[in-house]
């Protein structure tokens, strides 16, 4: 009997030990595997990851009650909404020794004045990734939103284009194509954007936010609307697989969406201490640099720059210079009425 009890106690303690874990809710393909392994070694815990591929998807999951993640990586407009919902824990800055590494330009933004709840993780732009050989062969200019919206251009690449399955991103791109602001909530302008999208829709193969990296690398798709970090990966994958074509990406000249992703801790986090440890770890220069070197994100960490490969620093779609940055916009949170309108227009697009 004693033996069995001993066994039982051992088992339980094993489970208790294994239970120390950091639950991370992050964008898909948005952290380097080596970084995760190093953090696991350092904290003696496991990192349990869950992924999302759209802001709305993440918000739906969090607000439906799955709020016990330790760290979430939401985009700036989602941070704003989560703060209003009283969903986040204020960050204990005294436990963050790497706080000074973040570039001043990325701190104290309107969505979280004073960075009470959030700290920048990385930034991406939403742009166009393309099959370099095919697009050159067809004489299409990839640095213009007409590549996914203009029917005369699309006629040449019918069925070889995917756009994001994400109302904010797609409406953002269409508004930019029309010369409006991404945060334009004028019903007339949004309807114009809807008309542009509906006219282009028959030429698109699919709404796709999750597997365009693969489709682009394999060569099934020639043009994809998506995140700069994903396109960076598609390019690397295509090169690694030795394809007879190459993948490249470029910012459209009309401007695009800039997404600043942040680290936050939900109120319901299971282990806020560990969460702070992770945030501090991600702000260390070499870890932040690894995110850029492996995943291809823009980096708000000033101290990380010397560790970033010079090749990547030169890519304007990942590290836009001041000139380019003027054409980029971040999405602000929409209120309920504005959201209802855009959702209605979006549902109509999907159904028609």
């Amino acid at each position, binding site marked *: 009997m004693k033996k069995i009890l001993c066994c039982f106690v051992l088992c339980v303690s094993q489970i208790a030990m294994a239970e120390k874990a950091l639950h991370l809710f992050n964008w898909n393909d948005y952290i380097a595997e080596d970084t995760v392994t190093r953090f696991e070694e350092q904290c003696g815990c496991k990192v349990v990851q869950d992924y999302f591929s759209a802001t709305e998807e993440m918000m739906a999951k969090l607000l439906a009650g799955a709020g016990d993640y330790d760290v979430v990586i939401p985009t700036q407009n989602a941070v704003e909404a989560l703060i*209003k*919902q009283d969903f986040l824990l204020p960050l204990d800055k005294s436990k963050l020794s790497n706080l000074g590494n973040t570039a001043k330009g990325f701190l104290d933004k309107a969505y979280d004045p004073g960075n009470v709840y959030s700290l920048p993780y990385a930034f991406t732009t939403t742009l166009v990734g393309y099959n370099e050989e095919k697009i050159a062969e067809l004489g299409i200019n990839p640095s213009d939103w007409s590549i996914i919206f203009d029917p005369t251009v699309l006629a040449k690449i019918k*069925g070889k284009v995917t756009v994001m399955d994400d109302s904010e991103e797609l409406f953002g791109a269409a508004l930019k194509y029309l010369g409006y602001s991404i945060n334009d909530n004028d019903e007339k302008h949004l309807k114009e954007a809807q008309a542009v999208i509906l006219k282009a*829709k028959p030429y698109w193969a699919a709404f796709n936010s999750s597997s365009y990296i693969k489709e682009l690398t394999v060569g099934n798709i020639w043009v994809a609307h998506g995140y700069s970090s994903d396109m960076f990966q598609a390019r690397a994958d295509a090169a690694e697989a030795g394809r007879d074509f190459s993948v490249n990406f470029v910012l459209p000249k009309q401007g695009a969406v800039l997404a600043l992703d942040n680290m936050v801790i939900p109120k319901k986090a299971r282990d806020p201490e560990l969460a702070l440890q992770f945030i501090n770890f991600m702000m260390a220069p070499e870890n932040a640099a690894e995110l850029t070197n492996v995943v291809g994100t823009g980096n708000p960490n000033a101290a990380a720059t010397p560790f970033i490969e010079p090749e990547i620093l030169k890519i304007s779609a990942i590290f836009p210079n001041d000139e380019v940055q003027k054409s980029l916009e971040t999405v602000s949170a929409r209120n*309920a009425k504005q959201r209802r309108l855009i959702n209605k227009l*979006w549902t109509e697009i999907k*159904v028609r």
Partner: protein
Amino acid sequence: MLFASFRYSGEYGGLAPWYYIEDGGFTLDLTLENWRRLFETEIYLSLLIKSLTYALLTTLICVLMAYPLALMIARSSKRYRDLLLLLVILPFWSNFLVRIYAWMIIFSPQGALTAALNVVTSALGLEPISLMFSSTAVITCLVYVHLPFMILPLYANLEKHDNRLLDAAQDLGANRFQCFWLITWPLSLPGIYAGAVLVFIPSLGIFAIPDLLGGTNGIMIGNVIKQQFVESRDWPFGSVLSLVLTAITLLLVLLAAKLGRPAGEDNGKK
């Protein structure tokens, strides 16, 4: 859900309170707007019809494919029967999504199937075709996923048939077609109805397959419902659509149950 369909959606998803107290007065805050939205354009109803067509087509193809197979299994010797049934159930051992991803590889423009088809189309002087992201891909996958649900009830029915009936018919001079059409087919109808319900209902509401294989115009009613609850966070309108779908499903099941009742029961009562 019925209650939710009359409420407003909350600021950040979920539902808004259904009443508010203002100046000491109690005011209900309910609306018909969500239901009006369903009928103000024809797009939701036409999508519903499209989804019904997809599900019906899937069911029909499943019957056509499953019947010969179920008959073959039921008539094969005991030795092979268990093995054949095992083969029917085998796909369930792997995850549903994994199987859809496998179809994505088969349908991809680089895949052998599409390549082979395009050799034929180019020989005939036609444009190359694309299978991926099309309604053909959606229906093929729907049939593939739901086929076992048709085979198993059909087999269970066919297996119980009394072979002496067929022997008797043959003795009385019926040919093989007459044997099938006058005896086996009518007796197997309850199995077909049972299978049809098992195939039709899930394929009407499915969203994963159209999401992954459907392309820009391959979506079904299930996708729009999912979109309301997940991306749009508009629970009230999602409830409206779900209620409509549930009502239609219920009606069809009642119809099937009425049809599926063995004819003998009615005759017996007379």
